[in-house]
């Protein structure tokens, strides 16, 4: 039996916003020239790039010259970590980060450690919320060059106490980098950061556009070979049509964010309560209240995560998983590990502007039977 597709993986990539599509097509006609050159076509491209930067800066609440576009959210995160560490290397070489940062941040941290630096992970509680006491102690230690805290967990949705963490950093004189990939375009941004990154395909922009914002007065030194473009913060030509589409869709997403939050948060509440009530032996993870409006994660005891994803896909549901069998490294998600919650049979559902109540109802109607079927096949019913 065929099933119509229901896409529930917006936290990986949200479907393109209609505004993104329109802006991309228009900019393909108008924005193909190199904005750094001195002829008519280049000036038109420069105008488009300047307008995109201005719009993005307005949405983020920063100055336009504090915003650089990168070739992905990952590149932005790498630049944020390595550039801020480079800018403060005379102060120290310690990076403090939460244990639940995105792998892009952790991979930059690994590079820093391989080069002789130190990285100190700060634990989270069972709900995935930062241990603020441990954080405050870690950032106060001598030789801390940078602290990194994700705005809200991309895997379990728990919103982090960024304002409190930022206050601890300010007391210690340590700059704070916030990976806001899951928050930008969806929820108000926290204050108190020095460096922030985001990724356009999380808010309905095209893939391949990241945003790196560095506040004035922050010591940041490019970790890349020299290149004057994008304020010297990221090398290479930007994909201007995609940047224009990213900026236009960010403005549209931000304008709708409060209404979308009000629409999606109750749907996530419904998933949290119905999954817990109707699927036996399931652990719904993440903070039930202090969470993103569009993302929910749960783990089904005795069920193989990869098998569950395939079974859901056969019924038309696209979701993500933090289970080890679904990762290229065959390790469980470091986020679930840090929280100490069940990692197998894990499913992350993330909603977007095209998600309807009917989609969620169909998912909730089919999930218990799918899980029960897999448990019956595996012979684990009643364990």
């Amino acid at each position, binding site marked *: 039996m065929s099933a119509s597709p229901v896409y529930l993986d917006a936290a990986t990539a949200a479907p393109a916003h209609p505004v993104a599509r329109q802006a991309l097509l228009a900019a393909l006609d108008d924005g193909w020239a190199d904005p750094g050159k001195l002829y008519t076509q280049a000036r038109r491209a420069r105008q488009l790039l300047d307008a995109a930067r201005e719009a993005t800066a307005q949405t983020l609440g920063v100055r336009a010259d504090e915003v650089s576009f990168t070739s992905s959210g990952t590149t932005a995160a790498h630049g944020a970590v390595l550039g801020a560490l480079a800018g403060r290397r005379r102060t120290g070489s310690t990076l403090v980060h939460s244990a639940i940062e995105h792998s892009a941040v952790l991979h930059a941290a690994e590079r820093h450690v391989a080069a002789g630096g130190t990285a100190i992970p700060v634990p989270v509680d069972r709900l995935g919320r930062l241990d603020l006491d441990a954080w405050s102690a870690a950032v106060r230690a001598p030789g801390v060059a940078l602290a990194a805290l994700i705005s809200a967990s991309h895997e379990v949705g728990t919103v982090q106490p960024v304002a409190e963490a930022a206050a601890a950093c300010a007391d210690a004189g340590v700059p704070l980098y916030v990976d806001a990939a899951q928050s930008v375009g969806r929820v108000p941004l926290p204050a108190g950061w020095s460096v922030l990154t985001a990724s356009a395909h999380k808010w309905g922009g095209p893939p391949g556009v990241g945003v790196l914002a560095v506040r004035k007065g922050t010591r940041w030194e490019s970790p890349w070979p020299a290149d004057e473009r994008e304020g010297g913060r990221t090398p290479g030509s930007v994909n201007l049509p995609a940047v224009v589409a990213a900026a236009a869709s960010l403005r549209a997403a931000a304008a709708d964010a409060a209404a979308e939050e009000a629409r999606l948060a109750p749907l996530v509440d419904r998933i949290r309560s119905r999954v817990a009530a109707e699927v036996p032996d399931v652990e719904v993870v993440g903070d039930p209240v202090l969470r993103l409006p569009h993302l929910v994660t749960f783990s089904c*005891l005795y*069920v193989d995560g990869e098998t569950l994803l395939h079974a859901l896909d056969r019924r038309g549901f696209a979701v993500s998983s933090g289970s080890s069998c679904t990762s290229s490294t065959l390790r469980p998600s470091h986020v679930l*590990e840090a929280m100490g*919650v069940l*990692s*197998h049979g894990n499913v992350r559902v993330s909603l977007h502007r095209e998600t309807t109540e009917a989609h969620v109802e169909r998912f909730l109607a089919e999930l218990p039977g799918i899980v029960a079927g897999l448990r019956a096949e*595996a012979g684990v019913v009643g364990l």
Partner: protein
Amino acid sequence: MPDEVLDCRGQRCPLPVIAAARRMPQVPIGTVVRVLADDPAAAVDIPAWCRMRGQEFLTAITGPEGPAYDIRRTH
């Protein structure tokens, strides 16, 4: 020392957890079962299973036989 050993080496999660869940009701209350499991997910999932099932997770050790997890049946 454990009362018995459940060798789940080479098994991918959730198989070590399933093996523990099958064995625990068969042993007397108070019995300590050591689960040998080299899948890295077992380090997360065996303690999580104990919490969900109200069994006592005693310790995780890495001995000559690789990673091992001791569980006591409490009910």
